[in-house]
């Protein structure tokens, strides 16, 4: 409990604020972007540019936090290299999503006002930053709510499209239930222990001062809440509907940034609470979740005919692979997750970007409309193939590296998880089928021999996709630094 010495407290708070600079920058961006739309009525993208600048500034401020390890605002928030890794990843995703949004026809139709869109992206990024470092259950809840609220609105941003508003409404209901379950679990946890602070809670649990049943029930409920954010089976039901209905950019954002932040929060919670929990055999729980998530994600994806829906199931399956890494939960396991999520971010963003650009041209995300499209857009088609290969985990792409480290972590942790790794490998074989289906439609279906007229894309949009391609290829070959970065971040996290 806090010592109410005002001088000490003031010093602590001002120290906290200095470490809180990146988040403050995001908040300022959020508010300024809101007003940019009012000030510059003529230029549609004023707030978009503001948010991009704001994100870059945040990135610069983040760079000053290398190696900082602190606990701020009276143990509300941890600032450590582990959080920093995820913050960088989230920041990159947000920036890419903002840039993607500039090229989306679906969003920029009919001189729609885009101010709220971009500022809500900044707001959501703020929420995700909080989740990466939250060490208090109140903060976890607030951060998740902030992410959820913004994503409800963003998913239904194109509200004149029926499926978008439907998706948004479903998302609200489903999300409320999930966060209700989570907050209920937290209240049980609080009732059983008397504290919301994860550090104190961990101490109480390892000292055996918390009763068994409340711990188990509460842990499961909180796992359910995180499971919803990372779309793990059986908490995944919202994912396909929402991804299909939301604008492509937002689907990408949810698939990458939101999931990454969810994993960051989940890992921190699991590492502090679950590993100290003598009652719940959480490894088995997570292993079961991982198997269910991989299998259902991959098997359902096979039959999808809508690119966004397919990507939704693919995102579910990828969450399953990452959950396998969580089963291990030692330094190797967590660093393998970080590597995986890092690689996953780029290839997924890239695939969504190409899907968006295709949708701009053909006005559809139906895979049957993709027939022979590879010949109409040779450059983007080639990039798409790279992303799909990477998602399927073929060498020498980034996706392969991610999977390699996850599976290695499982095998390294002893033979008891070898079966899980085998299921994972079988699943990645299955996944190749539906990624190949997209490629097959793009290249092997339709009239390839006729002189097809090519789609013209703005060179800026192609440049964006090309820039996303660079890490997918580069980190497939030269992944040493990422691995080292992840290892260092984890090492500091455990000490």
């Amino acid at each position, binding site marked *: 409990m806090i010592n109410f010495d005002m001088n000490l407290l003031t010093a602590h708070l001002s120290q906290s604020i200095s470490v809180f600079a990146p988040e403050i920058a995001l908040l300022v961006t959020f508010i300024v972007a809101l007003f940019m739309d009012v000030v510059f009525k003529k230029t549609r993208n004023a707030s978009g540019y503001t948010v991009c600048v704001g994100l870059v500034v945040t990135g610069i401020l983040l760079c000053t936090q290398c190696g900082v390890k602190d606990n701020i605002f*009276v143990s509300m*928030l941890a600032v450590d290299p582990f959080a920093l890794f995820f913050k960088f990843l989230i920041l990159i995703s947000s920036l890419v999503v903002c840039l993607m949004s500039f090229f989306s026809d679906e969003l920029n139709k009919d001189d*729609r006002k885009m101010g709220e869109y971009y500022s809500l992206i900044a707001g959501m990024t703020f929420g995700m930053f909080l989740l990466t470092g939250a060490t208090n259950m109140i903060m976890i809840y*607030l*951060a998740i709510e902030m992410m959820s609220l*913004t994503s409800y609105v963003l998913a239904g941003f194109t509200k004149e499209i029926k499926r978008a508003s439907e998706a948004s409404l479903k998302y609200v209901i489903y999300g409320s239930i999930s966060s209700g379950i989570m907050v209920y679990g937290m209240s*049980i946890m609080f009732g059983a222990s008397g504290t919301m602070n994860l550090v104190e809670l961990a101490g109480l649990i390892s000292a055996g001062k918390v*009763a068994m*049943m*409340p711990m188990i029930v509460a842990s499961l409920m909180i796992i359910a809440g995180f499971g919803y954010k990372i779309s793990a089976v059986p908490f995944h039901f919202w994912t396909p509907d929402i991804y299909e209905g939301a604008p492509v950019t937002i689907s990408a954002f949810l698939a990458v940034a939101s999931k990454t932040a969810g994993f960051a929060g989940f890992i921190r919670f699991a590492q502090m609470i679950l590993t100290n929990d003598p009652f719940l055999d959480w490894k088995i729980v997570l292993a079961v979740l991982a198997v269910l998530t991989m299998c259902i994600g991959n098997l359902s994806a096979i039959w999808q005919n809508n690119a966004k829906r397919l990507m939704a199931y693919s995102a579910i399956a990828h969450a399953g692979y990452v959950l396998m890494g969580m089963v291990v939960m030692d330094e190797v396991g967590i660093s393998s997750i970080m590597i995986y999520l890092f690689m996953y971010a780029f290839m997924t963003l890239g695939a969504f970007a190409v899907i968006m650009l295709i949708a701009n041209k053909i006005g559809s995300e139906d895979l049957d409309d993709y027939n022979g499209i590879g010949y109409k857009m040779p450059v983007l088609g080639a990039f798409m193939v790279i992303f799909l290969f990477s998602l399927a985990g073929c060498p020498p792409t980034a996706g392969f590296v991610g999977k390699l480290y996850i599976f290695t972590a499982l095998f390294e942790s002893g033979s008891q998880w070898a079966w899980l790794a085998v299921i994972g490998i079988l699943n990645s074989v299955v996944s190749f089928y539906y990624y190949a289906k997209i490629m097959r439609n793009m290249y092997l279906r339709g009239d390839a021999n006729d002189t097809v007229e090519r789609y013209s894309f703005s060179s800026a949009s192609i440049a964006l996709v090309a820039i996303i391609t660079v890490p997918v290829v580069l980190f497939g070959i030269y992944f040493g630094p990422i691995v080292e970065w992840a290892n260092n971040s984890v090492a500091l996290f455990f000490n």
Partner: protein
Amino acid sequence: MGLESIVFYLFAVIVVASALVVVLSKKIMYAAFSLLFTLFGIAGMYAMLMADFIAVAQIMIYVGGILVLIVFGVMLTTKITGVDVKTGPTGKLNYIAGGLLAVMVAGSLAWLYTSNSWISAPVNETNTSINAVGNLLLTEYLLAFEVGSVLLLIALIGAALIARRK
């Protein structure tokens, strides 16, 4: 059974019964008005827990603000006042599954609450908790407090965005 218990069960019955009406009623106005009783009942529970600030806040914000807004909303959009809430056809299977699940959840929660020891806060000696709440909000929970306000701002923007015609 002391007076305290009698009052508690009274509030409990009010809360549960009116909540059931909220869920089951097909008339949207009935649902809105039953919600009033639910919220009142919960405020009473807070008061019994000596959480006077929360109890007052509950009445002022939920009953005085949110519920009034809901009722106004229902009344102003005349089209939905008299209309029944539509639900899809519910199969027998759903009833059975839902009922079973509800019973299981309720049962396990009841068992959970009765079979374990829970941490109880020390009995509040002072008359009001406002001081403590204010102090905590601006010291220990400063960040949560501020983040909560940002959350509300986002909710506001989101609501405006959804409501705006274009």
